[in-house]
């Protein structure tokens, strides 16, 4: 039915099967849209946030998808700036995943504010001292860059590409893509960092606050570093997942292993920096404010020292060790385990830097406050995932995302 739109030389499932998939995921998407409308119409009282939890599930989801979407900027940086040419075979998918992650982040932000119609105030009345201002500007600009990177891919659709203007536009955009990749990398280094800065500058919150250089707390650099390390892992994870679902090999093993190796190194060095940061914060910063490390991990039903071990050891040291080992990278099961752990690790990091910051008491006569999101919060967090799955399904079916697919699946 839609065979004229499918790239030449590749096989796709029947349109009926594809449509059923879209309808199922579309149902989930509609559930999220319903929750989103409830929130926009009735207000944030639809959530389980409260005056202790001004930041909650959504901000975590925001930070999470932006970190996971970091594969786009870092793979682009490696491909166009460093010159790792093999990565051209995975860059399209990295851009698509990045586009989904960043558009999701912007959507979540639009849902998360109390007065959505005033969202533009962040640009109009910008406070240059606020990390959130920097986030808003860089995020919007980088999303524009990702859109520019995604457009030529759309124009390469079999039918669109027959139009000479679109064909030439796509070709010319590819020619200058290095400039956009460089711009994107520059913007990403900043907004990933400013997201780390959002927590690090909270000098009223001993769990979050960090020293740093000039206006930038250490979390600024750690967030950029971790996005560079873990973002490509998510790109590889989704690639592997797509391969499993479609039953096809889509990217050659040498490309996967190259990106995995680079991620391993970035993650390994990041974890060393993270350990130093944690050690300094636990032994110098927090005690100077009258608090011990264990104060942040006790007297509450959830946040134990296990979460620190899970983030640094289980989801940091172990996956980086696997990715750094040639045997680990080449073993499909080990590689998939490492990629999964890495994605969980960065999500744990973002969780503690948002939720645990809010949960931990600062005044001596207050207690830990726990939080469970409402279904509306959960639905609106799942909404961008459903949107992402649909966009991946459509893009994979109609666009030449994987240049090596034809060769690998003759």
């Amino acid at each position, binding site marked *: 039915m839609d065979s004229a739109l499918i790239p030449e030389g590749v096989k796709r499932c029947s349109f009926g099967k594809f449509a059923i998939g879209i309808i199922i995921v579309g149902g989930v998407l509609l559930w999220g849209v319903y929750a989103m409308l409830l929130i926009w119409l009735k*207000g*944030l*009282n639809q959530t389980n*946030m*409260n*005056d*202790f939890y*001004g*930041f909650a599930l959504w901000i975590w989801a925001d930070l999470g998808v932006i970190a996971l979407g970091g594969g786009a900027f870092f793979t682009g940086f490696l491909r166009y700036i460093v010159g790792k040419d093999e990565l051209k075979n995975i860059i399209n998918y990295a851009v698509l995943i990045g586009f989904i992650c960043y558009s999701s982040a912007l959507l979540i932000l639009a849902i*998360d*504010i*109390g*007065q*959505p119609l*005033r*969202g533009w*105030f*962040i640009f*109009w*009345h*910008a*406070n240059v*001292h*606020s*990390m*959130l*201002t920097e986030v*808003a500007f860089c995020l919007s600009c980088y999303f524009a860059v990702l859109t520019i990177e995604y457009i030529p891919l759309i124009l390469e659709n079999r039918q669109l590409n027959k139009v000479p203007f679109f064909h030439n536009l796509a070709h010319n955009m590819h020619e200058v893509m290095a400039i956009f990749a460089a711009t994107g990398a520059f913007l990403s280094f900043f907004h990933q960092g400013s997201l780390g800065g*959002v927590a690090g*500058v*909270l*000098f*009223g*919150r*001993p769990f979050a606050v960090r020293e740093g250089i000039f206006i930038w707390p250490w979390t600024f650099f750690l967030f950029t570093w971790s996005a560079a390390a873990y973002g490509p892992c998510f790109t590889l994870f989704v690639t592997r997942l797509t391969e499993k679902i479609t039953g096809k090999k889509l990217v050659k093993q040498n490309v996967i292993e190259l990106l995995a190796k680079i991620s391993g190194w970035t993650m390994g060095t990041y974890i060393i920096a993270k350990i130093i940061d944690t050690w300094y914060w636990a032994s110098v910063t927090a*005690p*100077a*404010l*009258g*608090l*011990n490390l264990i*104060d942040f991990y006790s007297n509450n039903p959830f946040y134990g020292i296990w979460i620190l071990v899970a983030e640094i050891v289980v989801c940091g040291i172990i996956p980086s060790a696997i990715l750094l080992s040639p045997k680990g990278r080449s073993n499909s099961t080990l590689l998939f385990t490492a990629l999964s752990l890495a994605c969980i690790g960065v999500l744990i990091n973002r969780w503690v830097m948002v939720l645990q*910051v*809010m949960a931990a008491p*600062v*005044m*001596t*006569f*207050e207690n830990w*406050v726990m939080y469970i999101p409402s279904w509306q919060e959960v639905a609106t967090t799942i909404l961008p995932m459903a949107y992402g799955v649909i966009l991946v399904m459509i893009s994979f079916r109609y666009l030449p995302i994987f240049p090596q697919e034809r060769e690998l699946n003759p």
Partner: protein
Amino acid sequence: MKEEGKHKKAKKYGMVINLDECTGCGACMVACMAENNVPFREDESNKLDSIAWMRVYKLTNGKSYPDADICYLPRPCMHCEGDHGHSPCVSVCPATATDYSHETGIVSQIYTRCFGCRYCMGACPYHARYFNWWDPVWPEGTTKYLNPNVSPRMRGVVEKCSFCFHRYQLAMDKAYFEGRAELEEDEYQTSCTQACPAGAITFGDLNNPEHKVYQLAKPDNKHGGRPGNPNVFRLLERLGTNPKVYYISSREWVRRAGDNYLDNEDFAKNYRR
């Protein structure tokens, strides 16, 4: 109008609350709510989402009878100065909807500019900032009793104690009309100060040695306003928020409860830092 145009010395309005005198009656909370049109709901039992610009905490020393002791601690916004006006909440607001006035030392909140990101709430260690999760619903007839000098807030914005800033504006209007550029100490007082039956709250200019707040707190304004009176402390002094609300207590456990200290720390030595 003879003082018109004369350079005025910057004020630093602040508060001293004597915890030895506070009985925990809550009159300050009630007065604040009435004065500032603070919205309330039919069910106010969930204190995590109910608004109280002034909240009275009950502190205990954790001991059993006969050594048990309690203390009530009223907590308004601390109007932190931080480092040269770099208070925790002001610096993070992305839309400049909250500001530190170097003229009065008051941290303002511009409700019509706030778009409800709640970053300031996350930044405030005192939980002095509140979000309007609902639109205010005033019971029938009560709108007649709303204060016309204070704008009610809409759903989706953050609000907090303003040190009854509208009273400062009214007092300044009156002074200006009378040809004065300076206010007398009693011309600008917050509603909680006036409502406290025990007289536990004192309000005034921390820069003015003639004001009672200055004499009680003896702030060292060259060193972040640290109190000179050994019985006076500020909440979470060590964070560097430089708050303008001081507390008096003759009881060491109460002063110690004002901040976090390591178990092996010499409290008497460190709390003055």
